[in-house]
């Protein structure tokens, strides 16, 4: 162990070891993420109360401005800051080693903060109301693109620091054998992030130069193709990261081990190979790209990344089932899940995230990513309906659950008001669940996304949407408020705990390496070790079949619907 001096703090509650070089960086990145979530959440409420047609709160200019800021501060800033914290945690903490080049990590953090402030100033000054996508030839102030580029450079440095830390751990032999599955998942996220940020640089740097007047023309079709290599792939970082978090929480709460290291790791590798083709999802209703290109890319080369998600969808709850059965919850198919700690927000949040991501985000995503079916929902409010299911219920809720674990372990604070924390995942997750379904319902009847007024007041030839559209927007409004309250509680609990939570024993700084003492550390043998003769997770398998039936039905219902519309060729 190449550690000099007492560099490790050993958490007295879990035995997790935080290296002095990494600990403040993990904390700061997580805190920055929560601040972004707060800003984005306030904007979410205002956007929501405007799209709820009966309330229609703010004026058009401000609505489009807030929507631009909401998209970026949530989808990019909140999530990537938290992901950087996860990357440092999964490398330095889980592998018990120092962080590679901590000074560069501080530089990365500074660049990300400066970038965030820069583009937010551009937006709030009213110079960049171009939506998150900033499709050319609509032009924003150069500071908008510059801010995004600075943020991306910072995030890129963080990814390389993560990879460097893996090298350090290997060289200094801080672990034996292979890296843990959770670290492997984080590595998947980091590799996808590097691809993503490279795509972002390839398109945003010329667009910045165009905005500053040095380049005369950016081709709109090319912009869309490459921008989505950044825009969609950045959401694939989230998928890899939050699935790593699911595995981590299964391990933390249940002591679960992967049902099969091989299967879970191959599924992550499938992500690395195929997820980035999803740029095509946004170009299915576009001119300028061919049919064969659309079919191959939109399906991630024959749905191999969907296969990976379906595998994780089984193996994550499956690993929990195996662990629970190992502890004696073996009655029937479902005792293991009935007797799960549903009042522990670390678990309940993670499980709602998993179910919501699969049923709401996953099925809708595959449907709308089908070449011909995409025409039915392209640019309707169905699209944000889908990605709020993946990124809010999936990623955000998974990160929230992990926070409840990190507050005592990393920040050494007792959670204030644990009674409230118990309810938070349900409020947020179920509120968001109804919210996304209502959005998808509204999108199915044609309500456009990014639209201030679907009554078209003042238009020369207005159109009246069917009444169900307005009903859906009202349901969206009410359930959205429930979710915003859930999000507010999360921020209150985390910020409140950091400020006023009871200080916990931080544990000594030492140079020793100690074994992990997670809440449950049952030696899992037998089926959990993957005996081929076994059928280790029958309950999970039944859930998976329910999922499949829902998937198949919804998929073909949409084909049926497509077959009734105008002929197109």
């Amino acid at each position, binding site marked *: 162990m190449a550690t000099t001096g007492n560099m490790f703090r050993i958490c007295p509650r879990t035995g997790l070891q935080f290296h002095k070089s990494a600990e403040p960086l993990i904390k700061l990145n997580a805190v920055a993420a929560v601040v972004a979530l707060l800003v984005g959440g306030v904007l979410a409420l205002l956007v929501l109360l405007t799209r709820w047609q009966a309330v229609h709160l703010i004026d058009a200019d401000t609505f489009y401005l807030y929507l631009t800021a909401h998209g970026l501060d949530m989808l990019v800033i909140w999530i990537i800051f938290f992901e950087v914290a996860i990357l440092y945690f999964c490398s330095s903490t889980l592998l018990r080693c120092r962080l590679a080049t901590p000074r560069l990590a501080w530089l990365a953090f500074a660049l990300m903060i400066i970038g965030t402030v820069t583009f937010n100033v551009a937006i709030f000054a009213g110079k960049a109301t171009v939506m998150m996508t900033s499709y050319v030839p609509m032009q924003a102030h150069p500071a908008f693109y510059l801010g995004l580029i600075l943020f991306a450079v910072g995030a890129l440095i963080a990814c390389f620091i993560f990879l460097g830390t893996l090298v350090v751990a290997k060289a200094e032999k801080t672990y034996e054998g292979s890296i843990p599955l959770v670290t492997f998942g984080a590595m998947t996220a980091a590799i996808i992030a590097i691809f993503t940020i490279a795509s972002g640089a390839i398109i945003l740097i010329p667009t910045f130069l165009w905005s500053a007047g040095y380049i005369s023309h950016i081709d709109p079709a090319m912009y869309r193709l490459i921008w989505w290599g950044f825009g969609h792939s950045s959401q694939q970082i989230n998928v890899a990261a939050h699935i790593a978090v699911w595995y981590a929480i299964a391990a933390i709460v249940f002591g679960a081990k992967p049902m099969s290291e091989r299967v879970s790791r191959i599924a992550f590798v499938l992500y690395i190979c195929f997820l980035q083709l999803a740029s095509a999802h946004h170009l299915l209703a576009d*001119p*300028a790209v061919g049919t064969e290109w659309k079919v191959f890319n939109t399906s991630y080369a024959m749905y191999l990344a969907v296969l990976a998600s379906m595998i994780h969808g089984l193996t994550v709850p499956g690993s929990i089932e195996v662990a629970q059965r190992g502890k004696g919850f073996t009655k029937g198919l479902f005792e293991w899940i009935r007797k799960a700690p549903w009042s522990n927000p670390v678990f309940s949040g993670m499980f709602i995230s998993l179910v919501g991501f699969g049923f709401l985000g996953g099925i809708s995503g595959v449907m709308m990513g089908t*070449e011909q079916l995409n025409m039915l929902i392209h640019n309707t409010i169905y699209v944000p309906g889908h990605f709020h299911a993946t990124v809010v219920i999936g990623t955000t809720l998974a990160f929230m659950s992990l926070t409840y674990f990190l507050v005592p372990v990393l920040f050494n604070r007792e959670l204030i008001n644990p009674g409230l924390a118990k309810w938070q995942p349900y409020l947020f997750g179920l509120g968001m669940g109804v919210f996304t379904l209502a959005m998808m319902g509204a999108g199915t009847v044609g309500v456009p996304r990014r639209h201030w007024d679907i009554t078209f007041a003042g238009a020369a030839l207005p159109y009246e949407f069917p009444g169900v559209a307005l009903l859906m927007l009202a349901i969206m409004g009410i359930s959205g408020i429930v979710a915003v309250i859930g999000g507010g509680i999360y921020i209150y609990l985390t910020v409140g705990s950091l400020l006023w939570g009871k200080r916990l024993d931080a544990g000594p700084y030492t140079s020793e390496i100690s074994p992990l003492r997670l809440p449950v550390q049952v030696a899992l043998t037998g089926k959990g070790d993957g005996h081929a003769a076994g059928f280790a997770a029958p309950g999970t398998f039944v859930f998976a079949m329910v999922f499949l039936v829902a998937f198949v039905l919804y998929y073909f219902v949409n084909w049926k619907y497509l077959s009734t519309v105008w002929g197109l060729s």
Partner: protein
Amino acid sequence: MSSIHPPSERIWWKQPIDKSEIIWIAIAFAWCMVMFFMMPYWHIYGKQNLSTETYRVTPQLFSKAAQQMVDKYTVRTETDRNIPVVAPPAGGDVYLIARLWDWWPIIELEKGKTYRLHLTSMDYQHGFSLQPENINVQVLPGYEHVVTVTPNRSGAYAIVCNEFCGIGHHKMVSKLYVK
């Protein structure tokens, strides 16, 4: 040992895989193949496939073609802005301009007849969203997208813009008639 520890078996890739995983992977893979082959299948047997016929175009050239169509086939005008309603012959070319912030002109088609609908934008990106049919196509400046359409129901339709195109975006809506 758990998912946040190094694998307990050094040679983890030789560990046998549980049956519930194997069977699920086989089912999921089969389903993925079904979904993949649905797309080419629909191109052969389905009647709703978006054309990708695309040409480079300038606003001047496209406006000229649209103006010629309007001059030849206008049947009436609508609203106090006298927006022409154009009924081009069945099987012919129909030009629809997207611009800040309207669709021009108003098109009148015949049910069951096939038309070549040419779409482009004069300025920003726009979204062609035919309501209540709910067919949605992206419209880019500089590209002329030719979509072959066959209306199967008569009535008054709306064309909504569903790509954000600036402060007048929510007023960019027009009509399309099918006789």
